[in-house]
């Protein structure tokens, strides 16, 4: 009886292996996309939204004939991996994505620390990565397969701080708060440089650990500086909301900036009335009149599915998927290296309209997606767009094609 059971188990195993092998063969016609993002914690809304928008992009591509290269048409599939917004979990996500699942096109990587952990492997195995880490060092000739799919401090801070200076000419002093990790450390350097260039005095640049739950000591430290401007640079929305709430309780009043603010929803939910008038450097009103019809549709569907409006980082997953589709078709190959060479040469249809890659002057390589820079402010609990700037480089590229 025992022998019979053993042979039955072996037969079942063999059947399972052959089924898996046939599935793998079926996967030859599928290009696997991946996302690495925080799906829990204070930055979870970014990961959950990016995953949802990425799935919409994949659905759209599959419904519109897939991707054609080398005389073959491919369907697309997307898997999202939790990176915990830290390098340890980012490293685990990278192993699972690149070595276990053999993903070779990453349409969104969120968080500098996990993106750097992923990059150390993705460049080696030849996977193309779209990401929105804010560090300058992730791009350049040393990392030819890494592209950025949303604006970063190097694109955003100048226009944002210029606008704040115009609207609050009496403000002279700034206090900054950043998470004490790779994102915060890279953001802080650029923020300090840009503020100083505009004549501001930095009275405090404070740090905190991600995962902090009690923000009163930080708020006390910030409030005691009596700074005119409080910029919670790299703090994700839930953390920024908690700090603004405590600052309001402790009586601080001034100009509030959330340079990395990607939307009012989580900020308002946590910070309540204290976040009114916060300037955000990385947010957009995709339900408003300046959004494209596609963005309005995604925003409306996202509201129903997620209970939150779609933000810039979520939308970047759509734009990345479309850029990669265009890149594969232009290269006529699914080799990530060939696609990476094709990307800087093409103009593709993003959710904002025609977009391209540039930024060689800043990064040494044209690896930055050129999309509009949008400055917003929270008014009555809603994100309101107050300025939209089309990058000069994009204008020039589009003019050349006309």
């Amino acid at each position, binding site marked *: 009886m025992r022998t019979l059971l053993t042979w039955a188990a072996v037969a079942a195993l063999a059947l399972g292996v052959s089924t898996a092998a046939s599935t793998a063969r079926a996967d030859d016609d599928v290009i696997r996309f991946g996302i690495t993002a925080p799906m829990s914690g204070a930055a979870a809304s970014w990961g*959950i939204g990016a995953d949802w928008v990425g799935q919409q992009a994949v659905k759209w591509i599959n419904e519109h004939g897939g991707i054609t290269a080398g005389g073959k048409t491919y369907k697309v599939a997307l898997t999202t991996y939790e990176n915990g917004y830290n390098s340890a979990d980012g490293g685990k996500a990278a192993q699972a994505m690149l070595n276990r699942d053999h993903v070779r096109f990453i349409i969104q990587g969120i968080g500098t620390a996990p993106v750097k952990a992923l990059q150390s492997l993705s460049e080696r195995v030849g996977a193309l990565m779209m990401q929105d880490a804010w560090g300058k060092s992730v791009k350049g000739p040393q990392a030819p397969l890494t592209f950025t799919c949303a604006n970063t401090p190097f694109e955003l801070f100048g226009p944002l701080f210029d606008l704040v200076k115009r609207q609050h000419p009496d403000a002279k002093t700034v206090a900054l708060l950043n998470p004490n990790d790779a994102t915060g450390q890279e953001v802080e350097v650029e923020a300090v440089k840009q503020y100083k260039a505009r004549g501001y005095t930095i009275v405090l640049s*404070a740090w905190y650990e991600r*995962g902090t739950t009690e923000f009163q*000591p930080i708020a*006390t430290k910030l409030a005691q500086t009596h700074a005119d401007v409080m910029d919670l640079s790299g703090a994700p929305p839930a953390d920024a909301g908690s700090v603004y709430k405590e600052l309001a309780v402790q009586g601080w009043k001034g100009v509030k900036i959330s340079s990395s603010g990607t939307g009012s929803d989580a900020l308002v939910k*946590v910070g*309540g009335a204290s976040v009114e008038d916060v300037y955000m450097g990385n947010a957009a009103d995709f339900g408003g009149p300046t959004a494209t019809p596609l963005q309005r549709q995604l925003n409306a569907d996202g509201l129903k599915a997620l209970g*939150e409006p779609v933000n810039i980082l979520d939308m970047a997953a759509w734009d990345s998927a479309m850029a990669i589709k265009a890149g594969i078709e232009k290269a006529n190959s699914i080799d990530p290296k060939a696609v990476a060479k094709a990307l800087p040469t093409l103009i593709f249809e993003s959710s904002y309209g025609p977009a391209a890659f540039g930024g060689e002057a800043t990064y040494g390589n044209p690896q930055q997606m050129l999309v509009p820079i949008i400055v917003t402010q929270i008014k009555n609990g809603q994100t309101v767009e107050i300025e939209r700037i089309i990058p000069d480089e994009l204008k020039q590229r589009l003019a050349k094609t006309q």
Partner: protein
Amino acid sequence: MGLFAQLCINTLQIGAVYVLFSLGLTLVFGVMKIINFAHGQFFTLAALLIAAAMPAFTVQFGLPVWLDYLVSFVLAMIAVGLLAAVLYFIGFERYLRDLIGSFILSLGLLLLLEGVYLWLFTGSPRVVAKILPGQVSFAGGAMETQRLVICGLSLAFTVALYQFVQHSRLGKALRAVAEDREAAMLQGIRYRRTSFYGFMIGSGLAAVSGGLMAPLTPITPALGSDYLTKAFIIIIIGGLGSIPGAILGGFLIAAIESVAGYFFDLSYATIAMFALVIVFLLVRPEGMLGYAQR
């Protein structure tokens, strides 16, 4: 004066919750001699359930916010109680006084429960509606009114627990078991039953602190982890198994976080806490008020 008052207020409000959370952990260790890494999951579950239930009740029954909170709080306590009882009978009962076994079991439960919470509640931060509006000021320092009330409730729970452990029959049994299990059993104290009660009270304290924190902080499935780390620091400094030690340690850690966090940096405050733990483990492993053997 304003700054000093604010630092004191910060210490009080942070310490009140740390103490309540740590009391449960130290009680469980004292009675059962186990390290429960899943302790924070009771805290998290209570907060998550309140955050999930309150909006549903508001829509369904149109209750005022405070009543909504109260009903959700009670339901969350019942749910956590049931979970704690199940975990005790299927797991912890088999590993009483087994540090390694309970360590592995509770670490597994921590990962399992965090995954389940993530699946059930998603990782997106949830927020509970404000129960009491306004803020109070004292000598130039300020805090939200609801924080003040919740600090008061935390302290009231702490005092009640202390009195219970000092004077009630079960409290005396818990202390007796914590100090000398064999001697307690020779006196007729039923060890397994006392352990179960101790575990339930400890888990209940974690749930109460989670429920009290729910209106004050964004709630995610990872919420309990930060408090668990602090609680371990507190009970090592205060003395493993010591209730007065947990109270003293809780306020000491809150003071370090508040004062060192202000004058230096919050990262330095965290380093200072761990440095203190190392010093205690080397110089006085029984903690400030503990009775553990070297």
